[in-house]
């Protein structure tokens, strides 16, 4: 039996493992942690104080026949087809899939480590989200500076989702009039993809959220409570909510030329093959594909790689489908692919229900049992269709 070794028990790794025929392939998932987290819920821990349990043991999320090994990988040698674990020795493979996600890097920006440890964020972990909720619930008014520290970040809609949910929370507790909310972003506008910005910008304005565009965080001074940007602007805060930059895997990969300067793994954008290799793939947030770092891309890339490994023709078309909570009970989806720009898809209550349903059935999606629902949804919401339907006068 051919050996498929999957490094990482996140969405990409588990969906891939669960789509391989374990009667034909020897499938092993390795992760340094026992637990898998539903990361999109960090947002609701941080801004609503949700106490929902969002983790499950990785071993319970794999179908029978697929193996889970808890080990921390130190080195991957693509030329020798060897993977070195720090606990259980050396692993060989016929196919390797790296699905290690991203690593937050609060140490790469001066002042961010202290700010992050003190205030938390809504992206990184349960701990950091609980930390932020304790700060948000203690907050008595003043200026909130909220945004991403660098352009490389997971889940593009989540940044504004945070600002929207914070605004809703402050209004509910009667602090909105005492608070200035400043949303800073390295992009030219509140939402980076222009068609979606057209949809959400009126909401940003209506809710009185100030936007500082082209603001890429250079330094933070916790003493004077000031953030300075690479572009030369500065912003004073009372409550800083800063999502740290994302970096690639900490694992040493030989040859190192397959990684970019932030350690993301270079891979073909349709086949996810690591540049120069036919037997090694990089799936999800850990790769350099020109698409969003989000659960749905990891999911679709994993399904394509499962097909490729099993000898079926398949490729990833760049489809994104990012749920976008615009607060007050409404949501939309950011939908595009490699050939079609983001559609200006308006928020509705129904889409909010769909986002909340997705959170409930997430565990099924990892097992592959929700595939037929997704197939239908993706067919009905093809970006070319939505772009036609919601086209505006320009």
């Amino acid at each position, binding site marked *: 039996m051919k050996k498929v070794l999957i490094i990482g028990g996140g969405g990409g790794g588990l969906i891939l493992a669960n789509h391989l025929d374990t009667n034909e392939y020897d499938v092993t998932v390795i992760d340094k942690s026992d637990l898998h987290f539903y990361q999109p819920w960090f947002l609701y821990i941080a801004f609503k104080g949700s106490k929902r349990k969002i983790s499950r043991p990785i071993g319970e999320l794999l179908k029978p026949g697929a193996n889970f090994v808890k080990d921390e990988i130190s080195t991957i040698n693509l030329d020798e087809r060897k993977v070195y674990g720090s606990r259980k020795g050396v692993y060989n493979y016929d196919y390797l899939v790296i699905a290690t996600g991203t690593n937050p890097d609060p140490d790469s920006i001066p002042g961010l480590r202290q700010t992050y440890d003190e205030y938390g964020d809504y992206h990184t972990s349960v701990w950091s989200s609980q930390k932020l909720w304790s700060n948000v619930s203690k907050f008595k008014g003043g200026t909130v500076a909220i945004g991403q520290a*660098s*352009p*490389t970040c997971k889940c*593009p809609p989540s940044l504004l989702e945070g600002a929207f949910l914070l605004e809703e929370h402050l209004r509910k507790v009667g602090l909105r009039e005492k608070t200035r909310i400043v949303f800073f972003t*390295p*992009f*030219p506008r509140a939402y*980076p*993809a*222009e068609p*979606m910005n057209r949809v959400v910008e009126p909401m940003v304005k209506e809710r009185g959220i100030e936007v500082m*565009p*082209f603001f*890429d965080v250079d330094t933070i001074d916790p003493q004077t409570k000031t953030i300075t940007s*690479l*572009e030369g602007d500065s912003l004073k805060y009372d409550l800083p909510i800063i999502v740290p930059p994302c970096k690639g895997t900490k694992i040493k990969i030989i040859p190192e030329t397959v990684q970019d*300067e*932030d350690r993301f793994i270079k891979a073909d*954008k349709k086949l996810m093959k690591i540049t120069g290799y036919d037997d090694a793939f990089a799936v999800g947030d850990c790769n350099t594909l*020109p*698409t*969003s770092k989000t659960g749905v891309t990891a999911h679709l890339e994993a399904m394509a790689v499962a097909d490729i490994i099993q000898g079926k023709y398949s490729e990833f078309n*760049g489809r*994104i489908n*990012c749920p976008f909570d615009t607060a007050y009970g409404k949501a939309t989806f*950011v939908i*595009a*692919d*490699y*050939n*079609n*720009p*983001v559609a200006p898809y308006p928020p509705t209550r129904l889409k909010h229900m769909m986002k909340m349903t997705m959170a409930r059935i997430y565990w099924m999606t990892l097992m592959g049992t929700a595939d037929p629902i997704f197939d239908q949804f993706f067919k009905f919401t093809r970006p070319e269709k939505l772009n036609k339907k919601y086209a505006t006068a320009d």
Partner: protein
Amino acid sequence: MDAVKIIDSRGSACPGPITDLAKAYRNSKVGDIMELWATDKGVKADAQAWATKTGNEILEVKEDPEKISIKIKINKR
């Protein structure tokens, strides 16, 4: 002279080519020449706005059926 650094953002719709440009800017130094490749039509206006804001210079904008390429000189870091 150093080689031109190619930033290939073709196919990127969201967050889009400006992400890759801003990311390359962080790792750049004064005097660097970067060439941004994109398919997203909005890139021309966005790159111009970015260059104006950051004090860098757009040397050339070329369009062919496969891509839009924008050559940028880093004057300020």
